[in-house]
Every structure is written in C-alpha cells, then in structure tokens.
C-alpha cells in the first residue's frame, strides 16, 4: 500500500528531535498500553495485521499520534472488526459481559514469558531458493495495495543479494493469518542506484526481501 507509513526517502520532515535521557516510557499511559498490547487482540491479530491496521490510520492521525496511541487504535480496531469489543465498551471501559480474572503473572513470570517471545519467523519449505548470494537482482516495479514490506524507494531498483536467511512467513499473506513462507534475502543497493548520482558513492542501503519481491536483473 502506497500509504503515509512508507516514509523512506521522503523529504521535508526536518531534523531528528533527539531525547537525551529517555528511559522507557514518557508517560504512564504509554507504559500501560505497551503492557496491554500483549494481552488484548483477536486470534487473527498477527504482527502483520497489527502493522497494517496502523498503516490504515488516516494519514494525519498517522503523523500526529503518539507511537503507543497508534498501537491503541490498531488493537481496538482489530477487536471491533472482530466483533469482540464494541465501541460503547471502549468508550465506557465497562464490559457488556464479564469473566473471571485469569491467574496473575509475577515479575519473574513476566520475564520468563518475554523470553518465550523469542520466536523465529523462519519456516521450512520444499522449494529451493531461486536466487543466491552474490547475484544481481531487481525489485518489483509495482506496489501492492494491501500490506507488503517492499518500501517504495526500493522498488524497480537493482541490487545484489548479500545474504540468504532461509524461508520466512510472508507479511503480504500473514496480514490475513496465512503464513505462506518464502525465501528471504538481504538485498544491498548502492545509494546512487536509489537516489541518483548526488548520493555518497560509499553509502549502501540494505533491505530484507522475500522472493516474490524480486525479479531477475
């Protein structure tokens, strides 16, 4: 989707505002939202659906909302779309039906749970990879209207394969909870190939690209 989220290479955003003493959260609601995000969400809310729901925010909301507020809207939109929460419940904070509380996690339990989140997106598939490290390839000329992870700036450009990572869950389908894994490569582009002759000669930009994002050079 050629959405507002596809920011790579866009001009006019000014300088990067740095935070010197940033620890973890700027406000307490951000901390609560972070924690809630691990629990609230429909069974269909894959990472990719979560991301796509953020991409579907109104462009001005996308640019102005706090990071964790985008998480809020992604998650509640998922819950409303899935029919699990109603807008009335979200407004009031009062459940239309209640359920008994689950067991609580201790701090140690949380730390153990978080360790368990170290899950790879790698999946075994039968097909052999088409491309190999060292090969020159091109990226697809056209974008895809739904969720996809080939940035617009890296479309229709030539680069070389610098790494092969096995096959990984494909975001384009995982947005609908279908893993359909494909071979994943790291593609290196010279900055001059992306931005033209004025770019530094020894700048390189690397992206990770699934096999269907590539064509033969």
């Amino acid at each position: 989707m050629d959405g507002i989220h596809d920011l790579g290479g866009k001009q006019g955003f000014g300088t990067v505002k740095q935070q010197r003493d940033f620890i973890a959260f700027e406000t307490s609601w951000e901390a609560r939202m972070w924690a809630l995000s691990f629990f609230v969400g429909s069974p269909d809310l894959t990472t990719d659906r979560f991301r796509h729901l953020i991409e579907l925010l109104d462009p001005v909301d996308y640019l102005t909302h706090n990071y964790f507020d985008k998480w809020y809207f992604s998650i509640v939109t998922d819950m409303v779309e899935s029919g699990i929460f109603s807008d009335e419940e979200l407004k009031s904070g009062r459940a239309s039906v209640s359920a008994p509380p689950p067991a609580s996690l201790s701090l140690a339990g949380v730390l153990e749970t978080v360790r368990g989140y170290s899950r790879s997106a790698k999946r075994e598939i039968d097909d052999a990879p088409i491309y190999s490290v060292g090969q020159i390839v091109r990226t697809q000329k056209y974008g895809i209207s739904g969720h996809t992870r080939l940035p617009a700036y890296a479309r229709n450009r030539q680069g070389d394969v610098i790494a092969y990572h096995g096959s990984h869950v494909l975001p384009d389908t995982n947005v609908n909870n279908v893993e359909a894994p494909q071979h994943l490569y790291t593609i290196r582009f010279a900055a001059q190939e992306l931005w033209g002759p004025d770019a530094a000669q020894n700048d390189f930009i690397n992206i990770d690209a699934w096999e269907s994002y590539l064509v033969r050079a």
Partner: protein
Amino acid sequence: MPIHDSKSAAETHLHLHSHLPSDPALRVKALESLAIERGIVTTETLDNWVEAYREHIGPRRGAEVIGKAWADQDFHARLMENAAEAIKELGHEGQATGDLKAVENTDKVHNLVVCTLCSCYPFGILGISPPWYRSAAYRARAVREPRAVLLEFGVNIADDVEVRVWDSTAELRYLVVPQRPKGTDGFSEEMLSKLVTRNSMIGTDRDLRAGEV
C-alpha cells in the same frame, strides 16, 4: 481464515476516532478496565509487565552482549554467526529477537539501523525504542541522507568510511556491534559493557570512550 477488508478497517478507525475521547490516557484507562472486566488480564500482571520493561529489559542487556563480544573472541564469533542464539547464553532473548543479526563497525565501515515502514526494534535486547527512532524524520532520512542524520547526532563519518544502512523490512532485527574503545585492555566484560550506549547499538553513536565508565 477470514480475509480482512482494509477499507472496512479504515472506516472503523475513523468511526472510533470520532466516538472515543481524544485523550489517549482516558482511552487506555478504559481499555484496561474493559480488559480486566472481560477476564483478559489482571492489574497485577500489567504492573509487572511495566516493571519488567522499566527496570529489567533495556539497553543494558544489549550492552552486556557487546561487552562480552569484545572480551570473548569465541562469543564474538557465535554472535556474528547467529545473534539470536548467542544472546540466549546471557538469557537476554525476548520480544523481536527471534531472528537477530549482528553487524559490526570497523575503521572503514559504519552501520546504521532504521525501520522505514514502521519502527521495528529488537525490544528484548534494547528495551523500548527511543522516540527519535520512531519519528518520521528519522525514518524518512536515515536511508536517504544517513551522513547528514549522523552529523545531527554528533557523528561525523569520514568520506572514506562506508555507511551501511539496514532497513528492518522483515522480522530480522539488527544489532550494531560498535568498535571497542582504545585503552580498554584488561577491562572486564562488565567494565566494557558500561561503555556501550544505546545509540551505539542502533548506529547513531560511533566513537565510544574508555573515559565514560
């Protein structure tokens, strides 16, 4: 599996925006109450979750990994080979570290990590991302003018140093291994880890100093 409709979701966004309070603190508070009444989670669990990321899961984890890599050649080799496995030796695996790749700075190479499409970040090893990392300006500019961005962070990259930008488009996350500062011979892993800044593991810091212990 249902094929979710993007148009419907965009309309739900607009509907919720016009029906819910604009203050995110109020909305998140309501969401928490709702989740608790629905039996999805408890207050105590949420408290502990926040505590975990406030006090335990943060850039010190990454710094420990780097300190160990500087001090221990074998660990360094394992980290460069498969960072996702190597960090488990310190028990530092966690969210978004399941596919982790370490990329190393040298005298002639500088690495910089960004996620232009959202704000992917190796939370389990670096904690919550700093707001600048998620900003539109950083995401837009890191791939187009990395040297200008680095200069704003006080990092002046010489013309003969290659800049490698890693745009995290897949579930792979990147961890920059900065150069070990001069004058640190004989430092312990712990002493070394204290020299490592969060930004140096993202790439917006480069020249670490022994004097910063």
